[in-house]
């Protein structure tokens, strides 16, 4: 839906129906639409979680280092 909405066609919905009820497909579609919109909006506001992964209350500057464009936590995992 986000990257190539034209690929979400009748055949795609036929495939979805093999695995999900129509109620579940509506729930998923609305959920995806909602997140597509809000995560883009939130991204423009540049705010980050109040707590570090180990539960410490952190400043927005420190939080950006932990969760921003190059998250420290992901870098440390990649090094392992």
């Amino acid at each position, binding site marked *: 839906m986000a990257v190539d*909405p034209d690929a979400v066609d009748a055949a795609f*919905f036929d495939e979805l129906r093999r695995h999900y009820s*129509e109620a579940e497909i*509506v*729930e998923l579609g609305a959920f995806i*639409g909602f*997140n597509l919109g*809000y995560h*883009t909006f939130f991204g*423009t506001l540049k705010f980050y979680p109040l707590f570090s992964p180990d539960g410490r209350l952190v400043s927005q500057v420190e939080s950006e280092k932990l969760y921003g464009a190059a998250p420290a936590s992901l870098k440390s995992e990649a090094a392992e």
Partner: protein
Amino acid sequence: MSYIAPLPPDAITDPELRALIAEGEALGVPDDLFPRIVARAPEQAVPLMRALLMSHARGNVDHKLKEIMRILLARFANDKYFASLRSRKARAMGLTETRIDEGCFAYEDAGKGFSEAEKCALRYADLMFLDANQVDKAFYDEMKKYWSEAQIMELGAFIAFHYGMAMFMRSLGAQAVG
């Protein structure tokens, strides 16, 4: 009409949802297709309809401006359903099709008479999904010249929600009847 068929109107018995559908039909946005589709997931339908109506028709930003922004977003999402709907309230307030097209395609033109505040809000809707990187600190500083922080949050949430629902309805191949 849609990859997911809407429920028949008489299959919807929840009085709260029926009242919200009536409110949407009176406004013109949405007509009853959107809620009859989302009513297939009943627990989702009421909050989605409430958010859609509240963000569009209430708040502290001019409804006519929001109506132009909503259509701009639906056109950008290539969603024929929401792009074809029109707010009767905005029309009664004097919004015309010509003004909608000017707001969607030519709001930066000096001759079109949009205020700096309106241009900034329309740019917000335009850029959010075209190039969100341009919606940066400098952009928000410019917004704050014309809008309160409450109004900026109202506009941002409105843009996010209506674009998301437009993409959802596009994915369903939905088109308004009539």
